[in-house]
């Protein structure tokens, strides 16, 4: 079990820089998720750690060892591919044993490890099938089992759930979490799905355009997004972003929307730079309220009932769309005109550089 250190690593394809002097430290046993939109460089970064991409600058260390000059097979890592990449002409057993044979693990040890991994992933009955004769979910399990038998220092998972259907994805997600708990091995998991990131990660690394936007625990990322990008990428439904001007600054900051409405926030005014700002409000901190006295008035367009809560898609008088939230038993109906109340302590402000300003954390 080893930690991983990325020290100023860069990757260029010709004139295009895809990873620019990126540094990151991952603790031993940690479950880290690389999260970002497609093309942000998260897979490239993972493949650089695996050794599948060359490193154009900087260092990569796994444990105490510098690995960026080592062949992939010598780095002590195992990887689960998005398309599983099982060897089509080999049986499940051979697939799992292949890497161990290459490492000259004794035959009885191989048998033992294969059996253990197969048992853990409940693929015992499949061991002698050809990998092409398996369903997608079965292939996924074999791919994970193939990684496990190697007892690597580091697991790399490249969007491993994206080819599964919703039910299977949930189940496998849970299993991966359990696996991590059981093995305690360091894992790096690449995804563009923020739900997977939130549910699995000890820490999330949000990547954008070849650089790190923010590193933090899921709740850090969610509650105090460092940038407007992070705020808008994490969270479903998406955070509402509204252009505002700072109206009054005191202990708290009061902002004015384009339509003239005034909203109070709990952001400390002292921290704020001058100029135009963007107000970030997650749907769950906008609630329907009586029309009188509410800071905002809006017309309901769509009511989305999710059971335990209800999402209200509304438009302000000037046509700005907003998503608000109500309880599961909401009585609001499409076409209603309602007032909206805002929780000031959950409001975020983003300055012209996209940097976030958040209310001081309580407690």
């Amino acid at each position, binding site marked *: 079990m080893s930690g991983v250190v990325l020290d100023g690593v860069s990757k260029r394809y010709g004139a295009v820089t895809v990873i620019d002097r990126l540094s990151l430290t991952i603790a031993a046993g940690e479950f880290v998720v690389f999260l970002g939109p497609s093309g942000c460089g998260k897979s490239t970064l993972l493949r650089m750690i695996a050794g599948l991409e060359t490193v154009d600058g900087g260092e990569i260390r796994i444990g105490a060892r510098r690995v960026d*000059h080592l062949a992939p097979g010598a780095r002590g890592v195992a990887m689960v591919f998005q398309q599983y990449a099982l060897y089509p002409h080999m049986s499940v057993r051979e697939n799992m044993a292949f890497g161990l044979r290459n490492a000259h693990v004794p035959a009885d040890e191989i048998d033992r490890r294969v059996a253990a991994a197969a048992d853990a992933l409940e693929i015992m009955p499949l061991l002698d099938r050809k990998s092409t004769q398996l369903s997608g979910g079965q292939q996924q399990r074999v791919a994970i089992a193939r990684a496990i038998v190697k007892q690597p220092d580091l697991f790399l998972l490249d969007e491993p759930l994206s080819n599964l259907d919703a039910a299977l994805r949930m189940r496998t997600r849970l299993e991966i979490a359990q696996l991590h708990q059981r093995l305690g091995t360091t894992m790096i998991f690449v995804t563009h799905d923020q739900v997977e990131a939130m549910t699995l990660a000890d820490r999330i690394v949000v990547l954008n355009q070849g650089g790190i936007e923010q590193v933090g625990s899921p709740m850090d990322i969610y509650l105090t997004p460092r940038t407007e990008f992070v705020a808008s990428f994490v969270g479903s439904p998406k955070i509402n972003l509204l252009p505002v001007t700072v109206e009054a600054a005191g202990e708290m900051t009061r902002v004015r929307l384009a339509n003239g409405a005034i909203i109070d926030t709990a952001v400390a005014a002292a921290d704020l730079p001058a100029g135009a700002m963007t107000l970030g409000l997650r749907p769950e901190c906008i609630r329907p309220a009586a029309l009188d006295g509410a800071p905002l008035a809006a017309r309901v367009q769509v009511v989305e009932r999710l059971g335990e809560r209800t999402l209200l898609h509304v438009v302000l008088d000037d046509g700005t769309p907003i998503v608000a939230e109500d309880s599961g038993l909401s009585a609001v109906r499409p076409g209603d005109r309602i007032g909206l109340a805002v929780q000031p302590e959950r409001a975020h402000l983003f300055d012209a550089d996209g940097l976030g300003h958040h209310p001081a954390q309580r407690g």
Partner: protein
Amino acid sequence: MASLTPRRRRATDWTNALFVLPYLIVFVAMIVVPLAWGMWLSTTKSDLFGTEGFVGLTNFVRLFGDPIFLQTVWNTFYFVLLTVPLLAVLGLALALVLNRQARWAAVLRTIFFASTVLSVTVVTLVWRLVFLPDSGLLSVVTRALGGTPIAFLNDETLAMPAIAITTIWWCIGLPMVLFLAALQQVPRALYEAAALDNASRWRTLTRITLPAIRRTFALVIIIEVILQFQLFGQPQLMTLGGPNNATRPIVLFIYETGWRQWELGYASAAAQVLFAMILIAAMVQYWLSSRREAR
């Protein structure tokens, strides 16, 4: 340390080339050098036992003023036009019908491939016997049907089509097998989707199958163009290039000038022209198919 990485990478690159090296050695020894040798010969007056002298482009000038050579160029193109499209289309048609696992399909596949295993000597002998107006198979059939047998191989206009038929009979196995291999790799899901969409056979063929095997189609065309441009044995053995030069292709011209007339330089010049023609034809075909793909 930092400088270690790039140096190591370059070393690896060279070792990568070791995979292609064995082939490249043979390629250079058996194609590049002989071709260069041939190009040099084409600028000389030589026979098989030595070179008399350098003559520059004289051989090429003579070629393009030689009505027999110009006719062989036309004959070769004509033959390629007669055979290649038919080979591709018939090969595809056979593959489409025979691409199933039923026993009868396997038997038919073998039948359509069987003629490919014969050598050109046997093929031409058989087809000469078929085309003979006097006692050939076709004439027996024609007479039985009350017609007058036609002297295919002695007729200026029919001789080349007769050779083309012989060639198609002989060569149809290769395109069929290539298409079969391609068809078996078309994902079944595509057909299922088409079936769910109630697509007709024709639509399934034109919208699903053909796009899926487009690359194989281009491959078959290129291979056949290259092969059929080198037509030689069939006319040599069936018509000797006649009647009235109607079936004399370039390769037969090269053979006759080089081996029979001992004009190696002149024959080499004709071989260079053939090389250029094949190259252009293959490149045009490649360009067409890649352009279609890009669109």
